[in-house]
Protein backbone atom coordinates (compact mmCIF):
# COMPACT_ATOMS: atom_id res chain seq x y z
CA UNK A 1 0.00 0.00 0.00
CA UNK A 2 1.66 3.16 -1.19
CA UNK A 3 -0.88 5.64 -0.02
CA UNK A 4 -3.26 6.07 2.90
CA UNK A 5 -6.33 6.12 0.71
CA UNK A 6 -5.65 2.50 -0.31
CA UNK A 7 -5.53 1.56 3.37
CA UNK A 8 -8.87 3.29 3.81
CA UNK A 9 -10.36 1.29 0.93
CA UNK A 10 -9.08 -1.87 2.59
CA UNK A 11 -10.52 -1.11 6.03
CA UNK A 12 -13.84 -0.01 4.56
CA UNK A 13 -14.10 -3.44 2.95
CA UNK A 14 -14.34 -4.86 6.51
CA UNK A 15 -17.27 -2.55 7.24
CA UNK A 16 -18.98 -3.62 4.03
CA UNK A 17 -18.55 -7.26 5.00
CA UNK A 18 -20.02 -6.42 8.40
CA UNK A 19 -23.21 -5.36 6.56
CA UNK A 20 -22.95 -1.70 7.52
CA UNK A 21 -25.25 0.71 5.68
CA UNK A 22 -23.60 3.86 6.96
CA UNK A 23 -19.84 4.31 6.91
CA UNK A 24 -18.11 7.44 8.16
CA UNK A 25 -14.61 8.27 7.04
CA UNK A 26 -13.16 11.13 8.99
CA UNK A 27 -9.70 12.59 8.47
CA UNK A 28 -8.27 15.15 10.84
CA UNK A 29 -5.00 16.69 9.82
CA UNK A 30 -3.15 19.50 11.48
CA UNK A 31 0.31 20.55 10.45
CA UNK A 32 0.42 22.97 13.39
CA UNK A 33 -0.23 20.21 15.93
CA UNK A 34 1.58 17.44 14.00
CA UNK A 35 -1.54 15.28 13.93
CA UNK A 36 -2.87 13.08 11.15
CA UNK A 37 -5.78 10.94 12.16
CA UNK A 38 -8.03 8.68 10.15
CA UNK A 39 -11.24 7.47 11.74
CA UNK A 40 -13.56 4.95 10.12
CA UNK A 41 -16.86 4.29 11.84
CA UNK A 42 -19.56 1.88 10.72
CA UNK A 43 -22.87 0.59 12.00
CA UNK A 44 -22.19 -3.01 11.03
CA UNK A 45 -22.30 -6.18 13.06
CA UNK A 46 -19.35 -5.26 15.28
CA UNK A 47 -16.51 -7.45 16.47
CA UNK A 48 -16.87 -10.00 19.28
CA UNK A 49 -14.72 -9.26 22.33
CA UNK A 50 -12.50 -12.35 22.01
CA UNK A 51 -11.49 -11.46 18.45
CA UNK A 52 -11.05 -7.77 19.24
CA UNK A 53 -8.29 -8.53 21.75
CA UNK A 54 -5.82 -9.70 19.13
CA UNK A 55 -7.34 -8.34 15.95
CA UNK A 56 -4.15 -6.91 14.49
CA UNK A 57 -2.47 -10.31 14.63
CA UNK A 58 -2.21 -11.27 10.95
CA UNK A 59 -3.45 -14.76 11.71
CA UNK A 60 -6.72 -13.51 13.11
CA UNK A 61 -9.55 -13.23 10.63
CA UNK A 62 -13.18 -14.24 10.42
CA UNK A 63 -12.85 -15.04 6.78
CA UNK A 64 -13.11 -18.65 5.67
CA UNK A 65 -11.41 -18.40 2.28
CA UNK A 66 -7.99 -17.97 3.82
CA UNK A 67 -6.88 -17.99 7.39
CA UNK A 68 -4.99 -14.72 7.44
CA UNK A 69 -5.91 -11.08 7.48
CA UNK A 70 -3.45 -8.31 6.84
CA UNK A 71 -5.58 -5.21 6.52
CA UNK A 72 -5.61 -3.92 10.09
CA UNK A 73 -2.10 -5.26 10.76
CA UNK A 74 -0.73 -3.21 7.87
CA UNK A 75 -2.51 -0.07 8.96
CA UNK A 76 -1.23 -0.49 12.51
CA UNK A 77 2.29 -1.00 11.17
CA UNK A 78 2.14 2.18 9.08
CA UNK A 79 0.77 4.15 12.04
CA UNK A 80 3.38 2.82 14.46
CA UNK A 81 6.18 3.68 12.05
CA UNK A 82 5.36 7.34 12.58
CA UNK A 83 5.08 7.02 16.35
CA UNK A 84 1.30 6.74 16.26
CA UNK A 85 -0.95 3.75 16.68
CA UNK A 86 -4.23 2.04 16.04
CA UNK A 87 -7.29 2.01 18.24
CA UNK A 88 -10.33 -0.15 17.63
CA UNK A 89 -13.57 0.16 19.52
CA UNK A 90 -16.38 -2.20 18.77
CA UNK A 91 -19.57 -3.55 20.23
CA UNK A 92 -21.23 -6.62 18.79
CA UNK A 93 -24.44 -5.55 17.10
CA UNK A 94 -23.70 -1.83 17.18
CA UNK A 95 -20.72 -1.18 14.99
CA UNK A 96 -17.02 -0.57 14.90
CA UNK A 97 -14.70 2.39 15.04
CA UNK A 98 -11.12 2.22 13.78
CA UNK A 99 -8.82 5.13 14.56
CA UNK A 100 -5.36 5.30 13.04
CA UNK A 101 -3.13 8.08 14.35
CA UNK A 102 0.00 9.28 12.60
CA UNK A 103 2.50 12.03 13.14
CA UNK A 104 1.81 14.51 10.34
CA UNK A 105 5.42 15.51 9.78
CA UNK A 106 7.03 12.09 10.13
CA UNK A 107 8.91 11.02 7.00
CA UNK A 108 7.25 7.60 7.03
CA UNK A 109 3.73 8.95 6.98
CA UNK A 110 2.40 8.12 3.57
CA UNK A 111 0.60 10.72 1.50
CA UNK A 112 -3.17 10.54 1.27
CA UNK A 113 -3.15 9.82 -2.46
CA UNK A 114 -6.20 9.42 -4.65
CA UNK A 115 -8.91 9.68 -1.99
CA UNK A 116 -11.39 10.96 -4.57
CA UNK A 117 -10.95 7.85 -6.73
CA UNK A 118 -11.41 5.64 -3.68
CA UNK A 119 -14.65 7.40 -2.77
CA UNK A 120 -15.94 7.04 -6.32
CA UNK A 121 -15.19 3.31 -6.33
CA UNK A 122 -16.88 2.78 -2.99
CA UNK A 123 -19.99 4.74 -3.95
CA UNK A 124 -20.25 3.07 -7.36
CA UNK A 125 -19.87 -0.45 -6.01
CA UNK A 126 -22.12 -0.09 -2.96
CA UNK A 127 -25.24 1.88 -3.87
CA UNK A 128 -26.98 0.82 -0.65
CA UNK A 129 -24.41 2.34 1.68
CA UNK A 130 -24.35 5.95 2.82
CA UNK A 131 -20.72 7.10 2.77
CA UNK A 132 -19.97 10.17 4.83
CA UNK A 133 -16.56 11.70 4.33
CA UNK A 134 -15.29 14.52 6.51
CA UNK A 135 -11.92 16.16 6.21
CA UNK A 136 -10.57 18.67 8.71
CA UNK A 137 -7.47 20.74 8.15
CA UNK A 138 -6.01 23.86 9.75
CA UNK A 139 -7.91 25.80 7.06
CA UNK A 140 -11.36 24.35 7.52
CA UNK A 141 -13.66 21.40 7.11
CA UNK A 142 -15.28 19.65 4.18
CA UNK A 143 -18.09 17.15 4.48
CA UNK A 144 -19.61 14.92 1.85
CA UNK A 145 -22.46 12.44 2.20
CA UNK A 146 -23.49 10.17 -0.63
CA UNK A 147 -27.05 9.90 0.69
CA UNK A 148 -27.49 13.67 0.97
CA UNK A 149 -26.03 14.12 -2.51
CA UNK A 150 -28.49 11.59 -3.88
CA UNK A 151 -31.40 13.35 -2.22
CA UNK A 152 -30.24 16.80 -3.29
CA UNK A 153 -29.82 15.77 -6.91
CA UNK A 154 -33.09 13.85 -6.79
CA UNK A 155 -31.66 10.74 -8.36
CA UNK A 156 -32.34 7.18 -7.31
CA UNK A 157 -28.74 6.02 -7.60
CA UNK A 158 -25.34 7.59 -8.00
CA UNK A 159 -23.65 4.77 -9.85
CA UNK A 160 -23.76 6.45 -13.22
CA UNK A 161 -20.11 7.02 -14.00
CA UNK A 162 -20.44 10.43 -15.68
CA UNK A 163 -22.23 11.76 -12.62
CA UNK A 164 -19.69 10.22 -10.26
CA UNK A 165 -16.88 11.86 -12.17
CA UNK A 166 -18.48 15.25 -11.68
CA UNK A 167 -18.96 14.49 -7.99
CA UNK A 168 -15.28 13.59 -7.89
CA UNK A 169 -14.32 16.97 -9.35
CA UNK A 170 -16.52 18.67 -6.82
CA UNK A 171 -14.93 16.87 -3.87
CA UNK A 172 -11.49 17.57 -5.31
CA UNK A 173 -12.12 21.31 -5.63
CA UNK A 174 -13.29 21.44 -2.03
CA UNK A 175 -10.27 19.52 -0.76
CA UNK A 176 -7.99 21.94 -2.59
CA UNK A 177 -9.89 24.79 -0.98
CA UNK A 178 -9.05 23.63 2.55
CA UNK A 179 -5.50 22.76 1.47
CA UNK A 180 -5.61 19.03 2.11
CA UNK A 181 -2.07 17.73 2.04
CA UNK A 182 -0.75 15.01 -0.23
CA UNK A 183 -3.86 14.25 -2.20
CA UNK A 184 -3.84 13.75 -5.89
CA UNK A 185 -6.62 14.35 -8.33
CA UNK A 186 -5.86 11.87 -11.06
CA UNK A 187 -6.73 12.62 -14.63
CA UNK A 188 -9.53 10.23 -15.33
CA UNK A 189 -10.77 9.12 -18.74
CA UNK A 190 -7.28 8.75 -20.04
CA UNK A 191 -6.46 5.09 -20.15
CA UNK A 192 -3.18 4.13 -21.70
CA UNK A 193 -2.92 0.48 -22.62
Amino acid at each position, binding site marked *: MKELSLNI*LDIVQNSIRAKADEILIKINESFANDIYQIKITDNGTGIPQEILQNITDPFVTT*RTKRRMGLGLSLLEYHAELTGGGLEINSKAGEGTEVIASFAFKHIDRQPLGDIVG*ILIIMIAANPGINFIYTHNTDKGEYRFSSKETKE*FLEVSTLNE*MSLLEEIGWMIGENLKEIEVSGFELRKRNKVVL
Partner: protein
Amino acid sequence: MSKITSLADLKKKREELKSGLDIRVKAIDPENVVQVKVAMATCGIASGAKTVMEFFLEQLERRNVAAVVTQTGCMGYCYAEPTIEVKLPGQDPVVFGFVDLKRADQIIEKYIKTGELVDGIIPVNYQTIDLKE
Protein backbone atom coordinates in the same frame (compact mmCIF):
# COMPACT_ATOMS: atom_id res chain seq x y z
CA MET B 1 -15.82 24.44 -18.09
CA SER B 2 -16.79 26.25 -14.93
CA LYS B 3 -15.68 24.68 -11.70
CA ILE B 4 -18.11 22.63 -9.71
CA THR B 5 -17.60 23.35 -6.05
CA SER B 6 -20.95 22.69 -4.44
CA LEU B 7 -23.94 20.41 -4.78
CA ALA B 8 -25.92 23.35 -6.13
CA ASP B 9 -23.39 23.80 -8.98
CA LEU B 10 -23.60 20.11 -9.65
CA LYS B 11 -27.37 20.17 -9.81
CA LYS B 12 -27.34 23.17 -12.14
CA LYS B 13 -24.92 21.45 -14.47
CA ARG B 14 -27.02 18.27 -14.48
CA GLU B 15 -30.11 20.27 -15.35
CA GLU B 16 -28.33 21.99 -18.22
CA LEU B 17 -27.26 18.61 -19.49
CA LYS B 18 -30.71 17.15 -19.08
CA SER B 19 -32.35 19.82 -21.18
CA GLY B 20 -29.97 18.92 -24.00
CA LEU B 21 -30.43 15.21 -23.98
CA ASP B 22 -32.79 12.72 -22.51
CA ILE B 23 -31.12 10.93 -19.65
CA ARG B 24 -33.01 7.74 -19.09
CA VAL B 25 -33.02 6.22 -15.68
CA LYS B 26 -31.53 2.83 -16.19
CA ALA B 27 -33.53 0.21 -14.40
CA ILE B 28 -30.89 -2.40 -13.95
CA ASP B 29 -31.95 -5.95 -13.39
CA PRO B 30 -28.76 -7.70 -12.23
CA GLU B 31 -29.83 -11.01 -13.78
CA ASN B 32 -29.93 -9.63 -17.30
CA VAL B 33 -26.71 -7.66 -17.41
CA VAL B 34 -23.04 -8.48 -17.20
CA GLN B 35 -21.84 -8.63 -13.62
CA VAL B 36 -18.24 -7.83 -12.85
CA LYS B 37 -16.91 -8.35 -9.34
CA VAL B 38 -13.47 -7.04 -8.52
CA ALA B 39 -11.72 -8.69 -5.56
CA MET B 40 -10.83 -5.86 -3.22
CA ALA B 41 -9.24 -7.32 -0.14
CA THR B 42 -5.77 -6.37 1.08
CA CYS B 43 -4.14 -8.69 -1.47
CA GLY B 44 -6.17 -7.28 -4.35
CA ILE B 45 -5.70 -3.64 -3.43
CA ALA B 46 -1.96 -4.13 -2.98
CA SER B 47 -1.74 -5.60 -6.50
CA GLY B 48 -3.65 -2.80 -8.19
CA ALA B 49 -7.33 -3.74 -7.99
CA LYS B 50 -8.23 -0.06 -7.68
CA THR B 51 -6.96 0.77 -11.18
CA VAL B 52 -8.70 -2.29 -12.61
CA MET B 53 -11.97 -1.36 -10.93
CA GLU B 54 -11.77 2.21 -12.24
CA PHE B 55 -11.10 0.83 -15.71
CA PHE B 56 -14.19 -1.38 -15.68
CA LEU B 57 -16.41 1.33 -14.23
CA GLU B 58 -15.38 3.81 -16.91
CA GLN B 59 -14.91 1.62 -19.93
CA LEU B 60 -18.04 -0.52 -19.63
CA GLU B 61 -20.14 2.64 -19.59
CA ARG B 62 -18.15 4.21 -22.39
CA ARG B 63 -18.37 1.07 -24.53
CA ASN B 64 -22.11 0.81 -23.94
CA VAL B 65 -22.10 -2.50 -22.13
CA ALA B 66 -24.96 -2.83 -19.67
CA ALA B 67 -23.14 -4.00 -16.59
CA VAL B 68 -22.98 -3.86 -12.84
CA VAL B 69 -19.52 -3.48 -11.37
CA THR B 70 -19.18 -4.31 -7.70
CA GLN B 71 -16.42 -5.10 -5.30
CA THR B 72 -16.03 -8.30 -3.37
CA GLY B 73 -13.68 -9.64 -0.75
CA CYS B 74 -10.83 -12.06 -1.16
CA MET B 75 -11.74 -15.04 -3.33
CA GLY B 76 -8.81 -17.08 -2.06
CA TYR B 77 -6.62 -16.59 -5.14
CA CYS B 78 -4.19 -14.13 -3.59
CA TYR B 79 -1.34 -15.39 -5.76
CA ALA B 80 -3.22 -14.32 -8.88
CA GLU B 81 -4.39 -10.86 -7.83
CA PRO B 82 -5.90 -8.70 -9.16
CA THR B 83 -8.71 -11.16 -9.81
CA ILE B 84 -12.17 -10.48 -11.16
CA GLU B 85 -15.28 -12.56 -11.56
CA VAL B 86 -17.37 -12.03 -14.67
CA LYS B 87 -20.87 -13.41 -14.99
CA LEU B 88 -22.55 -13.13 -18.35
CA PRO B 89 -26.36 -13.34 -18.24
CA GLY B 90 -27.48 -16.95 -18.00
CA GLN B 91 -23.96 -18.33 -17.72
CA ASP B 92 -21.75 -19.60 -14.93
CA PRO B 93 -19.34 -17.06 -13.47
CA VAL B 94 -15.75 -17.14 -14.69
CA VAL B 95 -12.81 -15.96 -12.59
CA PHE B 96 -9.87 -14.25 -14.29
CA GLY B 97 -6.55 -13.78 -12.56
CA PHE B 98 -3.56 -11.46 -13.11
CA VAL B 99 -5.87 -8.81 -14.55
CA ASP B 100 -3.89 -5.78 -15.67
CA LEU B 101 -5.38 -3.09 -17.90
CA LYS B 102 -4.41 -4.93 -21.06
CA ARG B 103 -6.14 -8.08 -19.95
CA ALA B 104 -9.09 -6.06 -18.68
CA ASP B 105 -9.42 -4.60 -22.17
CA GLN B 106 -9.31 -8.09 -23.70
CA ILE B 107 -11.92 -9.32 -21.25
CA ILE B 108 -14.32 -6.56 -22.29
CA GLU B 109 -13.67 -6.83 -26.02
CA LYS B 110 -13.51 -10.61 -26.29
CA TYR B 111 -15.20 -12.32 -23.36
CA ILE B 112 -17.90 -9.84 -22.47
CA LYS B 113 -18.76 -8.74 -26.01
CA THR B 114 -18.36 -12.00 -27.94
CA GLY B 115 -18.09 -14.77 -25.33
CA GLU B 116 -14.63 -15.79 -26.54
CA LEU B 117 -12.41 -16.93 -23.68
CA VAL B 118 -9.14 -15.17 -22.95
CA ASP B 119 -6.01 -16.07 -20.97
CA GLY B 120 -5.88 -16.00 -17.23
CA ILE B 121 -8.93 -18.05 -16.30
CA ILE B 122 -8.73 -19.70 -12.90
CA PRO B 123 -10.29 -23.14 -13.22
CA VAL B 124 -13.38 -23.84 -11.14
CA ASN B 125 -11.81 -26.95 -9.64
CA TYR B 126 -8.82 -25.05 -8.28
CA GLN B 127 -8.66 -25.47 -4.52
CA THR B 128 -6.73 -23.48 -2.00
CA ILE B 129 -3.99 -25.39 -0.24
CA ASP B 130 -6.02 -25.64 2.95
CA LEU B 131 -8.86 -27.44 1.30
CA LYS B 132 -6.64 -30.03 -0.34
CA GLU B 133 -5.57 -31.67 2.90
